[in-house]
C-alpha cells in the first residue's frame, strides 16, 4: 500500500486546479453536478486522490465534442446529407458526391429513387405495359432494380388495401436525409439514376497473357475473348464475317447455343464473349452504330431500333415460355385439401452425375439403402440456403 499523504495539505494545494476546470467548462450541461462533486471533495477527509468528478476524461471529451462540433449531427438537415465529412470540408464544392466516412475515400452515399420516380416506374411497366428493358433505358435505372421496384410497389399497394400499418413518417424522414434522384418535370430530360451498362469483370480476364499478334492484323474484342478462354484463333473466313463485335449479339440472342465451347469434361467452358454481347443492353451498341452509319436519318434509325427491340423481346419471351413448359412437364404439384403444404414431385434421374459413381452420392434425391439422410449426419448446417418466393 502506498504511503498516505496528509489530506488537508494536499487538498489545499490542489484546490485551484480542482475548481478551475469545472468553471471553464461552463458550456457543459452537467455543470451543477460537477460543482457539487468538487465541493464534496473538500469535505472528504481521508482521501488523497482527486475525486473523478463523475466522468472520466474520455467521457468528458466526448460530451464536449458532442456539444460543440458534433451538435450539427443531432438533427438532420432536410434535403441534404449530414455526414461526418462535413466537418473536414473547407470549401463546399457542390458536384462532389457525399462521403459518409471521413477515412474512406472510395465509398459514396448514392442517391435512392424518389417516391415519384418509383411510382413512375410502376406506371410505365404495369399500366403502360412497357418492357423492363425499355423503361430501364428511358429512366436510367438498372433492370434488376426496376423489377424490384415493381415488386415493392405492388406489395405496398396490397398492404395499403389490407389496412396494414405503414411507416410513413419514417419514410419521409429517410428521404430527407439520403440523396434522391427526382423524377424529371414534363418536357425535361430524366437524369440517369445509375450506370445501366455495367460489364461484370470475368475471372478469366484476370490473367496476364503474352500473346504475339502480327502488326498487320487488327486484334479486336472477339479475338481477345478467345485468347482469354484459351480457344484457338478463328479461321480467316469466319473472322471476315464479323465486321464489329456487336454483330454477334443478334446471333447469340437468336440461338444461345451458338457460343462455342473449349476444354473437356469438368474443365469445359464457354468461349468468353466480347463486352458488346455481355453488357445488359447490347442493343444500345447497335443503335449507336446505326447512328454513326446514318447520321442524318434519325427517324429511320429510331424505327429500326424499336423493331429490333420488339424482335428480341419476342424471341426471349418465346424461349422463356418454352423453358417454363419443359419444367412444368417434369414437375407435378400435389396440394392435398386441409394441408399446409404443396408437394412438388420430380422424377429422379439415376446417373453418375446425380447419385455419384457408387450410387451413394450425398446430393442425390430420395432414400437409398445404406445412405443416411443428410439431416441426420453430424455437423449438418440446417439454416436454409434459399427461400422460394
Amino acid at each position, binding site marked *: 500500500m502506498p504511503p498516505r499523504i496528509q489530506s488537508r495539505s494536499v487538498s489545499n494545494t490542489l484546490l485551484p486546479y480542482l475548481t478551475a476546470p469545472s468553471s471553464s467548462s461552463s458550456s457543459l450541461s452537467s455543470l451543477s453536478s460537477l460543482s457539487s462533486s468538487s465541493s464534496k471533495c473538500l469535505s472528504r477527509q481521508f482521501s488523497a486522490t482527486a475525486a473523478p468528478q463523475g466522468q472520466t476524461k474520455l*467521457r468528458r471529451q*466526448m460530451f464536449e*465534442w*458532442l456539444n460543440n462540433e*458534433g451538435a450539427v449531427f*443531432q438533427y*438532420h*438537415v*432536410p*434535403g441534404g*446529407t449530414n*455526414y*461526418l465529412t462535413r466537418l473536414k470540408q473547407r470549401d463546399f464544392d457542390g458536384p462532389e458526391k457525399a462521403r*459518409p466516412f*471521413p*477515412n474512406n*475515400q*472510395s*465509398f*459514396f*452515399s*448514392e442517391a435512392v429513387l*424518389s*417516391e415519384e420516380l418509383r411510382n413512375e416506374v410502376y406506371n410505365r411497366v404495369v399500366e403502360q405495359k412497357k418492357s423492363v428493358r425499355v423503361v430501364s433505358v428511358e429512366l436510367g435505372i438498372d433492370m*434488376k432494380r426496376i*423489377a*424490384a*421496384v415493381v415488386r*415493392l410497389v405492388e*406489395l*405496398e399497394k396490397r398492404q395499403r388495401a389490407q389496412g396494414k400499418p405503414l*411507416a*410513413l*413518417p*419514417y419514410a419521409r*424522414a*429517410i428521404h430527407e*436525409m*439520403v440523396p434522391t434522384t427526382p423524377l424529371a418535370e414534363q418536357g425535361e430530360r430524366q437524369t440517369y439514376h445509375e450506370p445501366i*451498362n*455495367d*460489364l*461484370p*469483370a470475368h475471372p478469366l480476364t484476370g490473367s496476364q497473357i503474352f500473346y504475339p*499478334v502480327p502488326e498487320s492484323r*487488327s486484334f*479486336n*474484342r472477339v479475338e481477345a475473348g478467345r485468347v482469354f478462354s484459351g480457344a484457338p484463333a478463328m479461321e480467316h473466313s469466319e473472322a471476315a464475317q464479323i465486321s*464489329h463485335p*456487336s454483330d454477334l449479339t443478334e446471333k447469340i440472342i437468336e440461338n444461345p447455343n451458338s457460343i462455342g465451347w473449349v476444354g473437356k469434361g469438368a474443365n469445359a467452358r464457354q468461349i468468353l464473349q466480347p*463486352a458488346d454481347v455481355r453488357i445488359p443492353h447490347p442493343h444500345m*451498341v*447497335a*443503335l449507336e*452504330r446505326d447512328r*454513326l452509319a446514318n447520321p442524318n436519318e434519325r427517324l429511320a434509325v429510331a424505327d429500326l431500333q424499336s423493331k429490333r427491340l420488339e424482335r428480341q423481346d419476342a424471341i426471349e419471351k418465346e424461349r422463356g415460355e418454352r423453358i417454363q413448359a419443359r419444367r412444368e412437364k417434369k414437375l407435378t404439384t400435389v396440394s392435398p385439401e386441409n394441408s399446409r403444404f404443396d408437394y412438388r414431385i420430380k422424377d429422379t434421374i439415376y446417373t453418375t452425375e446425380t447419385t455419384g459413381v457408387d450410387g451413394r452420392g450425398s446430393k442425390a434425391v430420395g432414400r437409398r439403402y445404406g445412405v443416411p439422410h443428410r439431416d441426420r449426419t453430424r455437423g449438418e448446417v440446417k*439454416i436454409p*440456403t434459399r*427461400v422460394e*418466393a
Partner: protein
Amino acid sequence: MRNRASNALAKGKIRQSWSKYNLYNLQRFRSPPTANRTFFQQKWSAKAVSRAYHGEQVGEGQWKRMFNHRIRSVIPMNASDLAADDGSLVSSGRGSGLDKHGKPAYQTRPIPYSHMAFAPLERRLDVAIFRALFASSARQARQFVIHGAVTVNGQKMRHPSYLLNPGDLFQVEPERVMYATGHTKTAYERRQGRLARRKAKAEAEEAEAAPEVEAEPKETAKEGTKEPEKEDTKETLKALLAQAKAVMSAGKETLAPQRKQELRGFQQAVRRVLSRSGSSSVLADSLEAQFSQLTLMLKAKRGEKPATKEVKPRPEDAFATENPVKKDTEAAVSDKLSEAFAQATLGNDVDASELNDEEFETLKRALTQMRDNPLDNTKCYSTPWQPRQYMSAFAFIPRYLEVNQNICAAVYLRHPVARPGSAEVPTPFGESVATPAYGWYLRRRW
C-alpha cells in the same frame, strides 16, 4: 451469444451502430501506425480494427470460411465508345493503344478491390437489415430476426445468418422499425402511455360487462345524424389542438427548437379556426374524409383561378416531414392558414387565390402530417414520430439494396461490386487498413 459490442471509449472501436458514442469514435479514429512495425503486426491490427466493425457478431472461424479472395467488380461501359471501336484501337501499337500526346488512349481510375474484403458479410440477413436503415445497429437487426419480426420472401426467417440470394425480398415489421429509428419516450410519455393502456383496458371490461345496454343509444345517435356530425368537425379540430399542446408540454427536451416553433404556429392556426367557426356546417364523418374534402375544395378553387405565378415547391421541400409553417414567415403564413381553415369549416368559398402554391402545399403537408403521424402514447416510441438523434450521420443506402421505406421492405438486388473509383461495401476504413486486412485473410496466398 454474449454481446461484446460495447462502445467503450478507451478502445475507440467503430461498430455497426448509430449511437453517439460510435459517432464520436468514428470521428476520432486514426488508422493504426505502420512505422517501426512488422508486416505481421500491421496486418494483425488492421484485421482487428476492421473485424470490430464487419461481422463482429460472426465467429472468426465462420468468417474465415466465408471469406473469398475473388472480388466482384464491374466496369461501366459506354455504348457509343463500344460502337466507335471494335477493340483494335486499344490493342494497336505495342498492345496498349497508341499514345495521344503522352497520355494513354483509355484512362481509368483504379478499382478499390481491397475495400471489398468483407463483401460476403453483406449478404447476411442481419447486416442487410442494418444497411437498409431498418435497425439502429446490426445487433438490433439480429434481435429483430430472432424475435420473429422479419420475413424473407413472405416467410418468417429466424436465422440472422441466412445469406440473402439476389432477388430476395425481406421485410421488417414497421412498428419495430419505427421503434428502432425513432426517439425514445420520456418518463412522462411512458406514464401517459401506461394510463392510456389502463383506461382502454377498463373500458374494454366495461363494454364486456354491458353489451346489451350499448346497442340502443347507437340507434338514437343515428337518427340525429346531422347534429353530431356538425360537432364532429369541431371536435377533430379541437383534438388537433390538444395534440399539438400535448406535444409542446410533454417531450420538451426531446424537441428541436425549430420544430417547437413550427408546432406552435400550427397550434395558433387551429386555435383561431376554432374561435371563428362557432357554427360549423361541414359534413364530414372522419378526419380523413374532412382532410380529403378540404384539399379538394382548395384544389378546385385553385383550378378556377388562372395561375398568375407558378411557384414550384423547392426540391428539398418536396418531402419535408414536419414543416407546417416556415419559421421565417411564420406569423404571415399561419394567418393565411387559419383563414383558409376557417373558410373551409364554415363551408364558404375558400379564397385560395390568396394562398400561393407554397402555402397551399404547406397546408396540405400539415394536414397530412397530422393524419399520418399522430400522437399516441401507447406506442413504444415517442410520438409524433421523429428520427432519433445522430441518425443522419449514418443514413445511406448502398446500391445493392432497393428499399421501400413505407412498408419497411427491401430487395437484395445483387452482390456488392467494386467499380472504378468506388466500392459498394460500406466500410469506415481507408486503404491503409483495408489492404492489410485483406492480406491477413489471404494467408498464404499473399
